[in-house]
């Protein structure tokens, strides 16, 4: 899975806050040729995959499943927590592992934009 450094500024801040070492990783990424950026439409399609369980536009029925319009940083932190095994889950830990951190950030940003 290609690693893309295309996270929005707020998501980079999240990671920098979590571990100072990442700054070095970022500068390394800058030194390489820029990876292709997933289009906004591609991100919209990724997010639409989540809506089977989380409802159209993230307007789900069921405790905790409605994620449309929630702050991007909150969603991203949760997704990373699931992926890293730090947040308990029934199924989200298994889904989150299928995505790069950058993809999770873009998806979080998309859900945050839904009203």
């Amino acid at each position, binding site marked *: *899975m290609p690693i893309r450094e295309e996270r929005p500024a707020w998501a980079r801040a999240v990671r920098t806050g979590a571990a100072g070492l990442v700054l070095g990783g970022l500068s390394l990424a800058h030194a390489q040729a820029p990876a292709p950026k*997933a*289009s906004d*439409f*591609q991100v*919209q*399609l*990724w997010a*639409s*995959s*989540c*809506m*089977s*369980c*989380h*409802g*159209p536009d993230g*307007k*789900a*029925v*069921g*405790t905790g*499943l409605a994620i449309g319009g929630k702050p991007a940083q909150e969603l991203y932190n949760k997704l990373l927590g699931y992926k890293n095994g730090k947040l308990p889950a*029934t*199924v989200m830990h*298994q*889904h*989150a*592992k*299928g*995505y790069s951190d950058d*993809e999770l950030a873009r998806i979080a940003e998309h859900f945050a934009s839904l009203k």
Partner: protein
Amino acid sequence: MQRRQLLKAGAGVVAITGTPWVGAQAPRRVVVIGGGFGGATAARYLRQFNPDLSITLIEPADTFVMCPMSNRVVHGGLQLRDISRPYDRFVSRHGLRWVRGRAEAIDPVAREVRVGKERVPYDHLIVSPGVDYVYDGIEGLQTAEQQARVPHAWKAGPQTQQLRDQLQAMPDNGVVAMTIPKVPYRCPPGPYERASLIAHYLQARKPKAKLLVFDANPEIQAKKGLFEAVWKKRYAGLIEYVPSADLKAVDAAGGVLRFDMQGEVKAQVLNVIPPQRAGEVARGAGLANAGNRWCGVDFLSYESTAVAGVHVLGDSIAAAPGMPKSGHMANQQAKVCAGAITARLRGIEVPSDPIIANTCYSFVSQTDVIHVASVHRYDADKKTMLPVPGAGGLSSEPNMIEGIYAMAWATNILNDTLGA
């Protein structure tokens, strides 16, 4: 690079029109055959992406009845109306034209679909007809009348209720026999969920009765360890599981099943789930280019590898490795397909990095549920979708929390597919 983009964007369409469809000259008629998880989701998302597109849904039923949760109707936990949703509000809310009939044939040259006397023209066609049932080689189930006495209940609706009624009418010490076809079939864990829930019903209401499960496959095809553990722990003595059982004949009136190796079995309730293949309209149009049984597709667009301009979704496709025939998967494929058609209409590159997922809950009792999940990504070299290693997985054991999530899932995916 430019040429690669053009090929990606235009795919099979280039060959026919000479140029990709772009901008104001773009043809704007999409026709969708089948209002299930594939077709209805495709129509809904096409509308979301393209407010002005002409979208026609061809669907004979006035109400969608979802297969997921239909095993809960069989055991009595839900009623058919709980898993049904009429099409009328969906159709009007999303501005669809609804042709209330069965798509009988596709003419890919004239680009039209025949529905009775009507001919419905299309520029892009989406075919999502579900599966057809194949009774070839099962003696005694050749006529419609014989088949009607032995409900498969593998398309939710009247047969689901029929199976429920037969279970209720069965004597207290009766025998239920179900048969499972060879893979691939719709919903890999479905037969084992059904077995669990029939056993759950018998345990509560007819504890002297017995369930025989004859599987044409050599072993349980999904969530194997979890189902085996549940059957041993909760339903010991109630379920007898027989692998590699090839059904040869059925005496519907006498209540007898005959197998290649296992001989004859008598039962009061027969539930024969027949082998399956792509829906008739897809096969008739030459779309079933995988063994004349399933429809090959390009996994970036779900465009048929046999006929340009025709997309196939859901249970009818020749699935990618590890990709189950499930309602969830059809719903996911439909969004990729709607995205690809939209990209062509907009004259932009078809998104080349699809990520889709499957989440499948099975009830093993009135309250307890197990799941299997997977994430699938496109492999550009192999030109197929592959499960992401390390992602996905199973429940650790049956639990009630996922029973709640399973019901929320059912509501949310129905809203995502057919919500107004």
